[in-house]
């Protein structure tokens, strides 16, 4: 396959970026999208140009490092996978592919396609935990948790923190991400003591980071590579209102 790439290049956070066009020839349909970029980068390096920078690590869809807005969609055209799992057979010969970084005020560009997602870490730091020290905890089977509850908590816990939900949202809202973590812990008995304190702390941090509001368009759910449901957002809103109305002191 021969492809034309229009790639966002930006030297650093302080300089203006622009699209640069590259030709990617002899692309094998068996390559992953990132391997295709690797090959382009090898050519750029040999020509003495700076290779295209992008975040990536595990390349098996679980670490959440890779991002990329591909032809206007986070993680590209296919449902339920990350960019690193996308293969070139999903494209056609002579296609033009537009590649951009996540676009959100709370995710400033570091260089080219790599953005700073540390806002997500700060939200988790604000309250995304159960306050237990190491040791001194009860036996793991001391609390029985109904299988359906455990499974539902697991579904929320599969979030990989990639930020596609923010990139997909016209408001750059982080509600799906935050609500997934809030839900996981709110569903489980271990998470009850800090349930209302947690949701308030995490929402406050989310707002402080400059993410937009949720207007229920559902774009986040549609583009989430782990197909996390917006039911989580409803659950978080319910807990947040409860907290603000009657449980503020908890």
């Amino acid at each position, binding site marked *: 396959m021969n492809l034309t790439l229009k790639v966002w290049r930006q030297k650093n956070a302080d300089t203006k970026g622009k699209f640069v066009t590259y030709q990617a020839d002899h692309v094998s349909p068996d390559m992953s999208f990132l391997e295709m970029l690797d090959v382009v980068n090898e050519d750029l*390096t040999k020509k003495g140009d700076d290779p295209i920078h992008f975040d990536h690590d*595990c390349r098996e869809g679980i670490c959440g490092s890779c991002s990329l807005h591909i032809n206007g969609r986070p993680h590209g055209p296919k449902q339920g996978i990350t960019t690193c799992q996308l293969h070139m057979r999903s494209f056609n010969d002579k296609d033009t592919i537009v590649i951009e970084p996540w676009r959100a005020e709370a995710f400033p560009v570091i260089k080219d396609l790599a953005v700073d997602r540390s806002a997500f870490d700060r939200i988790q730091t604000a309250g995304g935990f159960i306050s237990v020290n190491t040791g001194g905890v009860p036996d793991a089977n001391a609390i029985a948790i109904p299988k359906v509850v455990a499974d539902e908590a697991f579904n929320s816990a599969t979030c990989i923190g990639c930020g596609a939900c923010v990139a997909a949202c016209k408001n750059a809202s982080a509600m799906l991400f935050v609500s997934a973590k809030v839900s996981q812990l709110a569903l489980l008995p271990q998470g009850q003591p800090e349930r209302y304190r947690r949701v308030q702390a995490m929402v406050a941090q989310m707002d402080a980071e400059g993410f937009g509001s949720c207007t229920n368009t559902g774009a986040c759910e549609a583009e989430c590579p782990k197909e996390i449901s917006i039911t989580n957002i409803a659950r978080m809103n319910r807990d947040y209102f409860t907290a603000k109305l009657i449980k503020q002191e908890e």
Partner: protein
Amino acid sequence: MKLDAKIPEGPLAEKWSKHKFNLKLVNPANKRKYTVIVVGTGLAGASAAASLAALGYNVKAFCYQDSPRRAHSIAAQGGINAAKNYQNDGDSVYRLFYDTIKGGDYRAREANVYRLAEVSVNIIDQCVAQGVPFAREYGGLLDNRSFGGSQVSRTFYARGQTGQQLLLGAYSALNRQINLGKVKMFTRHEMMDVVTVEGEAKGIVTRDLVSGQIETHAAHAVLLCTGGYGNVFYLSTNAMGCNVTAAWKAHKRGAFFANPCFTQIHPTCIPVTGDHQSKLTLMSESLRNDGRVWAPMTAEIAQKLRNGELQASDLKEEDRDYFLERKYPAFGNLVPRDVASRNAKEIVDEGRGVGSSGIAVYLDFAEAIGRLGEDAVRARYGNLFDMYQQITDENPYKQPMRIYPAVHYTMGGLWVDYNLQTTVKGLYCLGEANFSDHGANRLGASALMQGLADGYFVIPYTLGDYLATIGPSPVDTKNPAFEEAKKNVVDRVNQLLALKGTKTVTEYHRELGHIMWEYCGMARTEEGLIKAKAMIRELRADFWENARVSGSANEFNQSLENAGRVADFLELGELMIDDALNRKESCGGHFRLESQTEEGEALRDDNHYAYAAAWEYQGDNQPEVLHKEELIFENVKLSQRSYK
């Protein structure tokens, strides 16, 4: 220097309890006067940082990823072992200890392995308390499965994403301590060197990967939790960024490197498709519970399959060789990882491999689908089948999967004593980065167990002993050793950036990988290893002449990052070869063709090689010096592993 493993006296089952009592404690009011550096935030690093901070120490934690949650522990699929005996099927601490020692082909320390089994039960309690959503039964209690050929069901799991859930648990504990101000987190920072003052580790040098700034950090102790070095093979199931740099720099500062040649090659990975391949994807070991491994009976048939003249489904039963079932009737497709991998390689070497490259064997579910129905197979393995189809564009419900072994884990690592201290005082090593618990072969679902055991339940005790000994006087980076180490790092960066040759760093890495895979992979010979050593030396020299590194020092520069890591792999590769040459026996994942039984199985030589080989660095391009830690087995009887 004589290696002292500091194994406590007394009966096996009492060693750890007695040792914990004998270790010195740090006064609660003094803990806040200490600073500890933790490098790496996978299971070992995140759990250590969180636990030490919870005790009251000040922790500085570092990771090269943009978030601690992305460390490669996240990708572990299968599960975590623990001797809970919740299933009433005869498990015990002793059985887990015994299985681990035997599985490691008797090349691990008894005392360490026993402690690992002992604390395994606490890990599960800890994770559940953090909100880790393990799989449960309808009654609400935890579910277990049997894993990796184990005869008891002791593996706890969270679908196929156990590593992710455990790491998110440790990450949440870490976040809590960041929130409390006890941990200062440095993301996108790479450790470039260890700083030693009068032979003791007192800090590190880091590079801020965004600004390029070289920084120094002082502490009372340094913990390396930086994972394995499987990427020396270029292609592996490791993440792209996994590297040996931190451990290697520590090695050059005096930490011995033990058993570097012990690497685990996992039998069920998706085969390579071409030179563009950047990494390999593991398919969970659980597939071998129902899938049957086979290859065509003859090379002629294999050739026709490769050409597309025949399809796998066209082959009659008599043209198929279910080679694991044939050779190992007792264990069949469930033989340990090293045995399954080696047999697949033999098939390919005989010209009986399949797929367009000829470097694969089949893993076939036709029989299971016939027996259980497609829906039942989908319920068990649906996500894995989807992943396979996503990558290969082939439907495994209709045609057999193609699989081939790939590098997955490294049992070797920095030598540590019973306290997890390296041969450099104040420098500790945890998790996959150390050599301590898995001997020559790791059992499935034991990596997660070891990482968390070290971080949650070992280091919080053993580190205190050292800290109490050195006292809480303040530390800073004023000692000239910091400036000197920093200058070395700056020089190294400039040296790399000065490389303006014609070959990319990736090309060197790929070549190194080819050499390691060919000569120091699943089968090793003296002749091949000698040849490989010369090839690596030549490649390394060529790298420093003709490699090309882009960009500049004071910016986000992935080309530079990669160059530094590959330069270290080019040195480590040679040490692995030396270690493999020295060990003239076969054991676990280390298979020397010269040392096999009549049936072609790994043949140990306990009289000459029942030791851990710990290598001491002597300077660039100098042969390293071998130190032996004799392994003393007081509780288990050494026997030949047999899976017939």
